[in-house]
């Protein structure tokens, strides 16, 4: 199985974020990490390769710093990487990101393409499904399990989709296909020292905006303004040393909320 994993670098979960002066984006002097669902997508690809042999390729679109995500993936066992590199890839909408990735992989034939189910920054949950449509492939979203359908011998797969409120569904589908992977589908591995060493010698293909420009158009949606959310509640902050805060809180639980 030849598997492509689309990965994204996002601000670290607990990093304090500040708006830029224009209020259109965050200031980029923050720490970054791999988008969490993408880490699970990579892990799943590595496990599928271990079962069925093949190749795992990782791709990201972003500035030079985003290469860190690919490095880590190579250290964990991915075979090679594709980096759509440059600031021109920052701020693309999901449609154009997918079109750029599709253009960058046009000479390759993957059996499976994985993305995380959504990103921790935008949270659009769209790029994977859009990529499937551009490539003319079937897709399934929020996947919790992937098995080759050996009983049918038709080369297809059976995937387990997560639905709302604790419901699930198995879906049979042909390959090639695009799947968006849910966090928690597996247990993440750590990179080994030898893996980190080997990563340095693995192929990393760089793709510039110029190479995919003809596939990319103007954004179809635009973030006009970012702002700090308006509070819907009058939050009362309880302050002081822990023992005092505990006393204050119990007083509120008893007299205001009446739950004690």
């Amino acid at each position, binding site marked *: 199985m030849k598997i492509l994993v689309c990965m994204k670098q996002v601000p670290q979960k607990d990093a304090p974020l500040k708006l830029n002066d224009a209020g259109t984006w965050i200031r980029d002097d923050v720490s970054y990490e791999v988008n969490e669902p993408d880490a699970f997508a990579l892990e799943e690809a590595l496990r599928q390769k271990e079962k069925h042999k093949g190749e795992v390729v990782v791709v990201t679109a972003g500035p030079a710093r985003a290469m860190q995500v690919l490095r880590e993936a190579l250290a964990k066992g991915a075979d090679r990487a594709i980096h759509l590199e440059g600031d021109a890839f920052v701020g693309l909408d999901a449609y154009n990101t997918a079109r750029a990735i599709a253009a960058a992989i046009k000479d390759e034939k993957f059996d499976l393409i994985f993305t995380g189910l959504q990103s921790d920054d935008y949270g659009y949950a769209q790029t994977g499904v859009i990529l499937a*449509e551009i490539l003319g492939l079937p897709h399934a979203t929020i996947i919790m399990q992937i098995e080759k359908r050996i009983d049918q011998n038709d080369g297809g797969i059976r995937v387990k989709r997560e639905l*709302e409120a604790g419901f699930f*569904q*198995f879906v049979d589908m042909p390959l090639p296909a695009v799947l968006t992977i849910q966090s928690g589908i597996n247990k993440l591995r750590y990179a080994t020292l030898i893996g980190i060493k080997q990563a340095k010698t693995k192929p990393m293909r760089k793709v510039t905006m110029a190479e995919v420009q003809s596939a990319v158009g103007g954004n179809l949606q635009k973030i006009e303004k970012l702002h700090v959310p308006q*509070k819907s*509640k009058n939050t009362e902050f309880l302050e002081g040393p822990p023992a005092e805060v505990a006393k204050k809180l119990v007083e509120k639980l008893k007299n205001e909320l009446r739950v004690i």
Partner: protein
Amino acid sequence: MDTILVVVEQREGKLNRVSWETIAAGQAIAAHTGWTLEAAVVGSGAAAIAGEVAAKKVAKVYDVESARLEPYTPDAFAHALREFLGKHPAKLVLMPHTYQVRDFVPKLATALQTTAITDAIGYKYEGGKLLFTRQMFQGKFVADVSFAGSGPYFVTFQNGSFRADKVEAGAATAPIETVNVDIPDGVMRNKPQEVFKEAKQAVDLTQAEIIVSVGRGIKEQKNIELAKQLADALGGELAASRPICDNGWLPMDRQIGSSGQTVAPKLYLALGISGAIQHIVGMKGARSVVAINKDSEAPIFEIADYAVVGNLFDIVPPLIEEIKKAKG
């Protein structure tokens, strides 16, 4: 005059209640813009649902029918709506942000060479321009997003963004038009099996009056015990955000959020929970929220009645003692 189309969600012949919120959104935007509001039901044998929707204040209801729309597949739904929108153009298409909608809307929008603003929580109409607001960076910021291009513009609304009880009834029943769509062989590539539940849910958190919920801030599995002691002191149930259950520190049936249970207790006490959107949708119906988190910018504080910025490991032990004292 432009048209707003609300696509109502149905499963096995039952209207998904969250669709009323989307109708309310459509009515609000229609009142603002002066555009015409229409609705569509997509399925097989969905006439009864079309009738339900036709009682509301909408200009028209379409019943988009094909035997191949049941059970749901993204291929069939995208195909049907694409064909429908070809015959009945709309400027703005609204849907609830359900797992089903997010499975096919990006495909449909892409096939029409347009785009979807997903998981929106509201809208603004300023100087003849529609902006949709949506949370970003896990709820730390809200963005105003505009559309470019000629549309149709797709928008999906997060659960709870509009009030279902605000839906206006119509003065008269709206006309219903049945539109049969042709879905040729080979369109549907996926074969869905029956929908099922993993196991009988052992805990029904929806009935709990007090819930103590833990997130990533609990750090290690062994620290869950501390939260358990707090829940016991309060006489409440223990719950968690998704990462805790993914790690296996608590069973999946104690998960609160879009993929877990939706709760509305008297008290929701959040320990080390940042308040990502997917979690908030599962607990924002709580009558009161107390949040303890070391990050003063954690989005959970936006919806908290009482907030404590600090290390939960410092605060929870004396809190348990004080609760025990107060209860005598």
